[in-house]
């Protein structure tokens, strides 16, 4: 049975698109047929992070309007043959979306894929509402900072009141990813701990992704960090993808790495 998962955050710049790309690949690595859909109409980014920028010919709006078939618009990932990508339109804006067209598109995607991952636009405007409208579940991405948490809290409130599942009287499954946590800052009391965030948002923790400088370079290269075996963030995304696929994996909280003499000296002079 197919599952539609919206990746949301409320606030922009928290790593939502990066998370979508990595989880899409992570799910595909578990031998599941997965499609990631860029719902950020007019501000397409997911294609670049997946390294598929130069293969975009048709987009989801053209599919919804009958100008292209779904097969024509879907792009198969080079990194994993189980992953497909449906791009957003870069030349149109969010006003082109309508509920009926989205519902039809998602029904088609449900027939082909076990996991349909929707990358929501930032904010809580119409584009966001359309992304969550027909989702079975939502992954909420937060950074450990108060503004991100408040915006996510707001987005969860809207999810609980405006998604079709909520309107039908069912609860939308909600899972939290805490992204870019820095264990050293947490230890110094300069950053919120995972427990504090969970207490405020009151939803299930799906995983914690540590701050990792390699993520930016990976995104720039179109090679999601999950492909890097040595990266801590990549390992975290792998564990999260397994959990989404129903595999029991314990949540690992990033720990402070013990520094050697050179590291300590660098810390003093940095």
């Amino acid at each position, binding site marked *: 049975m197919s599952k539609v998962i919206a990746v949301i955050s409320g606030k922009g710049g928290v790593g939502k698109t990066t998370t979508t790309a990595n989880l899409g690949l992570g799910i595909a690595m578990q031998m599941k047929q997965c499609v990631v859909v860029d719902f950020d109409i007019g501000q397409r980014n997911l294609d670049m992070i997946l390294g598929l920028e130069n293969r975009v010919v048709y987009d989801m709006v053209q599919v919804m309007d009958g100008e292209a078939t779904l097969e024509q618009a879907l792009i198969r990932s080079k990194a994993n043959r189980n992953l497909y990508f449906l791009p957003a339109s870069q030349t149109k804006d969010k006003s082109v979306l309508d509920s009926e067209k989205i519902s039809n598109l998602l029904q088609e995607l449900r027939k082909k894929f076990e996991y349909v991952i929707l990358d929501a636009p930032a904010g809580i405007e119409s584009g966001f509402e359309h992304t969550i409208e027909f989702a079975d579940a939502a992954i909420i991405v937060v950074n450990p900072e*108060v503004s991100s*948490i*408040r*915006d996510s*809290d*707001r987005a*969860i*409130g*809207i999810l*609980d*009141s*405006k998604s079709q599942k909520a309107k039908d009287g069912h609860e939308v499954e909600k899972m939290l990813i805490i992204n870019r946590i820095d264990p050293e800052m947490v230890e110094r009391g300069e950053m919120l701990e995972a427990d504090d965030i969970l*207490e*405020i948002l*009151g939803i299930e923790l799906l995983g914690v992704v540590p701050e990792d400088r390699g993520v930016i370079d990976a995104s720039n290269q179109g090679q999601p960090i999950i492909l890097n075996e040595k990266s801590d963030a990549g390992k975290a995304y792998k564990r999260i993808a397994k959990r989404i696929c129903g595999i029991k994996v314990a949540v690992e909280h990033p720990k402070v790495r013990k520094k050697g003499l050179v590291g300590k000296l660098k810390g003093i002079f940095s």
Partner: protein
Amino acid sequence: MKCRQYNVKVFEVGVEDPESFIEFIEANYILIRNHLLSIKGEKSEKVISYLEDKGLRYVWNMELPLPKRGVEELCLVSPGVEARDESRERMEPEPESVEEGDEEEYGESLEALKIVGRALRSGQYVEHNGDVLSTDRINSGAKIAALGSVVALGKVEGDISSAGECIIITPVKRGNILFHGTKIENEKLIYPLNIIRYRGDKITVEAIDTKQSKRK
């Protein structure tokens, strides 16, 4: 001759300039809409027209036989703090959580106690013409505005406005607590459970349990 006696709630406010006055009334409308406004200061067509549009009842520069209680505490609330965001969705009333109370006890104008049994998330807004009991968290960006008292037993990081007898609340680090239009400084809410109420002319903050009334 038939006579009737009524009690009227009066909200006294001064006009410094029409714009800030209108901003203030907008921000506090829920709390003062059922009051008689006693306005002090220079009359202005803009303000009169605004009050008429809003359907607010008022007297201007009239000496009313008011007790001194509360007059000094009624101060302007920063509109930035109190401004209502109409785009926010209202929290749907929870029929199962509203218990019927004895309205006679609260007076004819107040509605029965409303119980909010789940966490209020950012953007959710409970407006009630009576007392409110919140048993869970009130997150940053959420708000309760009540004409009656408010009892908040969970962690409060959002905003609470009450024009009732009291506010009973846990310690607050963030969020704005307004009692009869007066902002209560969060530093004063130091007890495990605080009660904010009038003692004579002054608003006081005390521990709810007399054994804990000594400050830590």
